[in-house]
């Protein structure tokens, strides 16, 4: 068996192991707990959720 085959076989074991470990780490440290809240990051007090921006076209005569 040559080196490449060894590396390939090795990575078949190592890669999923690393992936599983990091998933476990992430859920343990609460990465997933507040997942949907990160979706609010683009908003803040200045431009809160519910306020549309960039509404400049087709506003009737009220712009000029």
């Amino acid at each position: 068996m040559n080196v490449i085959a060894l590396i390939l076989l090795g990575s078949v074991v190592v890669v999923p192991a690393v992936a599983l470990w990091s998933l476990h780490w992430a859920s343990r440290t609460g990465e997933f707990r507040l997942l949907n809240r990160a979706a609010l990051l683009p908003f803040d007090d200045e431009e809160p959720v519910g306020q549309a921006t960039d509404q400049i076209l087709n506003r009737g005569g009220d712009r000029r």
Partner: protein
Amino acid sequence: MNYGPLLFLGILFTLASSWVGLVLMPNRQLGALTANTSTNDTGVVVVYPQPRHGEAQQGAEHYRSLGCVYCHSQQVRPEGFGSDIERGWGRRRTVSRDYLYDKPVMLGTSRTGPDLTNIGERQSSHDWHYSHLYNPQITSKGSVMPPYPFLFEKRRVPASGPSSDALKLSGEFAVEDGWEVVPRPQARQLVEYLRSLKTTVDLPEAPLPKAAAVEE
């Protein structure tokens, strides 16, 4: 996902995987390829492929510089996949070894024009190539290949009489009496390159079809 280092690791790790898979592995597997030595029917030892030299190699540089690759591929797909072989673009498919010495390898991704892998076998006439390059409409009416007039020189016929390599132009392409069109060195080199393009040697991984191989 707030942990920066983990994100960085993921980003690097994913690209590293295909870098190993599609860059390093092919280099390991194909980088070690060597030319094939075989004995043909007449007992002559044939080493294939051979690096290009001289005019043909200079022609390859013009082929690169003029961007012929944007309309012409140089690869023959296997029997039963497309109709490359039926169209007479080659007698066998091309394989990695055929391109061993090409720098750059110009496989091409477009066939606005025909495949040129075997143009040297298909069309070996200098005259045809010169006329075609000077203006493709001369040989192939309706072609969309650009004319390359700048590879030729229009000059007065010398006192010693018309040059031997002057283009035979007639009809709408004819030049005034007393003038002639001759290929510049670039055109000569380019045509030498085109004439050198052929994959007519048997390879263990891509044998020529039997009937054709005997005829060789």
